[in-house]
């Protein structure tokens, strides 16, 4: 039983509040949060790769080739573990299904890796079946660097730290391996509807 905080009323009738997972609140702006400086990589040096456990490259696209892939426009709700949620965000990107099409793998897990050294881990199935994208457009504009541009992972059904900014590739793995935040106290899976914020949740 939670203790009652004397005199606390709160802002309970926030419009749309029924649409957010437990412990979240809605924002209109788009907060920026990350562990270090925003990396700057010129597009001519940018590429996106899919690699296996040994690091062997299974697929690679430079920026031009990446943009030539079939793109999708998606509208999704996003939920950050720091408790803000934002409804109806519009993105343009390439489905991970498209990126992995034709790659033959027994992998059950993936590690997303990024400029700046950030990593995050996910079960491979969470990246498939239209549930994940590599996004390069946001609200009709190019994705800004502070929000992860030129391209970021977008996995809206998990807490937003799984949607790695400044994405440079996916490693397909047989075994799970905790990523950056997952190694320092944050939940390995991160389902916002089950409030999997931290280790032990």
């Amino acid at each position: 039983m939670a203790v009652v905080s004397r005199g606390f009323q709160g802002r309970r009738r926030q419009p749309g509040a029924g649409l957010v997972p437990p412990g979240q609140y809605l924002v209109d702006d788009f907060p920026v949060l990350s562990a270090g400086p925003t990396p700057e990589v010129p597009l001519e040096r940018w590429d996106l790769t899919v690699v296996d456990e040994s690091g062997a490259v299974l697929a690679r696209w430079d920026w031009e080739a990446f943009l030539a892939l079939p793109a999708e426009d998606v509208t999704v709700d996003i939920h950050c573990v720091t408790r803000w949620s934002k409804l109806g965000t519009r993105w343009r990107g390439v489905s991970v299904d498209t990126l992995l099409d034709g790659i033959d793998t027994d992998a059950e897990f993936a590690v997303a890796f990024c400029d700046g050294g950030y990593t995050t881990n996910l079960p491979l199935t969470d990246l498939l079946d239209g549930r994940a994208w590599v996004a390069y457009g946001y609200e009709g504009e190019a994705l800004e660097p502070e929000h992860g541009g030129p391209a970021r992972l977008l996995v809206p059904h998990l807490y937003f730290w799984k949607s790695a900014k400044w994405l440079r590739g996916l490693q397909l793995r047989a075994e799970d391996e905790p990523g950056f935040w997952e190694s320092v106290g944050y939940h390995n899976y991160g389902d916002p509807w089950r409030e999997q914020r931290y280790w032990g949740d």
Partner: protein
Amino acid sequence: MPAPTPAPARWLVATVAETVPETARAVTLRLDVPGWPGHRAGQHLDVRLTAEDGYSAQRSYSIASPPGAERLELTVERIDDGEVSPYLTTVADVGDQFEVRGPIGGWFVWDPADPGPVLLVAGGSGVVPFRAMLRHHAATGSTAAMHLLYSARTRADVIYRRELEELAGPHRAVTLTLTRETGPGWTGRRGRVDADLLAEVGWPPEVQPRCYVCGPTPFVEAVARALVDLGHAPARIRTERFGPTGSAGPTGG
């Protein structure tokens, strides 16, 4: 990789033992939290407020007290249209209770085992986790050089001003800079934290200081970029950016 953090699975009851006004907008709450497992300097925690009808709201706040302090301390700055900070800064009084869960975050932390030097750069209430680090530095007698560069708008907005003066010493330096009004008699710095100021009060990149930057997003973006431009390795720079409610935490947007 930093040492693992124990899972902060349990909500604990926090009772306000004392409130200390810091500025017109910021208050330090000294809390009794039976069962608090301890924390590292720079970590944060979650606060949960619950109304009589069961409605609750949660936010994250940096911990202001060093590891091992007698009481757990939070310094909260009021956000006028916020949901939790107005309660914590203007309603919560001695004897009032809410819940906390933590500690959280094993990245934006400083440990005495780190040989230093350490540059701390704060914007506004971003100084809170650095107060924990400076006090921990003092309490452990660390000889790692630690320098806080703290930007506030006006003299009246400086949180912990007297305490920071007292904490400055042989291995700890504090530099204040005011971006708006300095007022008569101000002998400190004026203006924003930019590359020139960082080059002057910080260490050169060759010394490889660990840099921590905490504050509102535009401040953190500008300072982190300036540090990289000066030649500091991005991997030596740790940032914590405040969301719209002034709460601390990792990643995301």
